[in-house]
């Protein structure tokens, strides 16, 4: 069996099946939806950080751009949700294109510049003077297109496509080129890789992923404020989940979301002080002893982790 097919069967199929079937037996669909959102965002971070080496601290900017692209298209153009989803992805890709010069930076400088860009976008959208266009700080209401079942199913489809993309990156020449760029951009150029084009492609793919799931988030919740979809928690959670599981794999970010977001939902809501304590300790231990994530435990033993 080809390695990519094995990865699809082991790491993608179970997640997609679980996300599709659980709503039938578990009533808290919003919680399941949030899992799907974070499974998608963590893979989006994986594409640009795990494979390409850029830590996107302002990753939520693409999520917010997608949510607002969707909403404004519905509000001003009365578009149907599929068209509005396309508008949301387009908004995220345009933001990605606008920010491509940031890829000249590296390490912490890129992370900080990206964070600043997402904050700037948040300030523009929530500006009261733009209320006629963006509804400013008063938020969005999309009761006309509220379709929880359909938008949940769309989220599962977006997640599945994103997971499949990571399987492709894990098993393709393009994914190998991205990892070479992550390790050493100069050597990658001397290996004949068009570094600028490859990393821009990864960046825009990563933007598209967050934009799509952000647009779908707007559709699913249908009532939200700018600080909901531009909350830095989205970036931080997605990054921590991806790092915890282990980037540049398919299963790492999935495990990260299931374990950490699971813990968050068990104890984070009821006893937030314990959650913060455990979360903080967990992240410290991880950075100290497992910098390559949980899956590195298996990879060290020579197991081919999807």
């Amino acid at each position: 069996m080809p390695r990519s097919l094995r990865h699809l069967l082991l790491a993608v199929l179970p997640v997609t099946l679980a996300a599709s079937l659980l709503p039938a037996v578990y009533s808290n669909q919003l919680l399941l939806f949030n899992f799907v959102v974070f499974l998608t965002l963590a893979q989006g971070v994986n594409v640009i950080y795990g494979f390409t080496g850029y830590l996107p601290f302002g990753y939520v900017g693409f999520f917010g751009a997608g949510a607002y692209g969707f909403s404004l298209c519905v509000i001003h153009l009365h578009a149907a949700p599929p068209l509005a989803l396309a508008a949301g992805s387009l908004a995220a890709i345009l933001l990605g294109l606008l920010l491509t010069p940031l890829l000249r930076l590296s390490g912490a400088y890129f992370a900080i510049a990206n964070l600043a860009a997402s904050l700037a976008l948040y300030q523009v959208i929530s500006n009261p003077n733009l209320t006629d266009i963006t509804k400013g700080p008063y938020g969005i209401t999309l009761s006309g297109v509220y379709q929880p079942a359909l938008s949940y199913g769309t989220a599962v489809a977006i997640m599945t496509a994103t997971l499949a993309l990571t399987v492709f990156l894990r098993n393709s020449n393009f994914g190998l080129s991205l990892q070479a760029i992550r390790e050493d951009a100069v050597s990658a150029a001397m290996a004949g890789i068009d570094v600028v084009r490859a990393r821009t492609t990864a960046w825009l793919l990563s933007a598209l992923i967050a934009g799509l799931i952000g647009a779908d988030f707007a559709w699913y919740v249908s009532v939200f404020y700018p600080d909901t979809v531009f909350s830095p928690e989205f970036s931080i959670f997605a990054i921590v989940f991806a790092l915890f599981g282990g980037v540049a794999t398919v299963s790492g970010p999935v495990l990260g979301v299931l374990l950490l977001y699971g813990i968050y939902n068990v104890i984070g809501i009821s006893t937030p002080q314990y959650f913060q304590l455990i979360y903080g300790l967990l992240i410290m231990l991880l950075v100290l002893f497992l910098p390559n994530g949980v899956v590195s435990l298996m990879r060290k033993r020579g197991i081919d982790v999807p």
Partner: protein
Amino acid sequence: MSPEPAPLLRVAGLVKRFGAFRALDGVSFHVQPGEILGLVGPNGSGKTTCINVVTGLYAPDGGEVLFEGAPIGGLASHRIVHRGINRTFQVPKPFLTLTVRENVVVAANHARRDGAAVGVDEVLASLGLEAHAAKPAAELNSVQQKMLDLARALATRPRLLCVDELAAGLNPGELDRIAERLRALARSGMALLVVEHLMGFIDQVTDRVIVLNSGKEIFEGTLAAAVQDKRVVEVFLGADDGS
């Protein structure tokens, strides 16, 4: 006079400035296919800068770099690699978390499209890396990492290979083996530009040397003639104050 074959690489009046400092100040030389040209000179004379301009890491500030007759000065590195030039680095720069084999596969994937594909396993075997193919490159020692740098360069099937201080840190047995490898590559028609401090190694592999000082070439000819040249001796040993 017998007509010289057209040079593979012709560098004419090359200038590279860093601020007010002229790292290259009008360097000119050429390399023929199958020839090994040594680039020698004291530290800071512009040898590595020269390779960096030829391989597209820096854009030249003046002068010409012609490869197979076409100007390549200022082209992006990957385009220069696709034309048929590659290099090794003074401090090897492998992709550390990738396996040794993947390091070479990446380059083979982006090799020149014309002609036969390069065999990744053959390249690894020719440089004594076949036993380490499945290891991450980070686990190699520094000599092996140098060989991996060379393997990555060869996987793109270059017509011109620039070798930057490959010999430093090698033991005598390894030196002989790598010298023989480089000579074999030249016999196959590849041109080599070799930057090196070890004069024994230069003597062993090169057909001809260029001596650089302060960004200018001050001598061109065989190494045996170079050591007789008054200016070369002055640059390497200092002027005789008594005369």
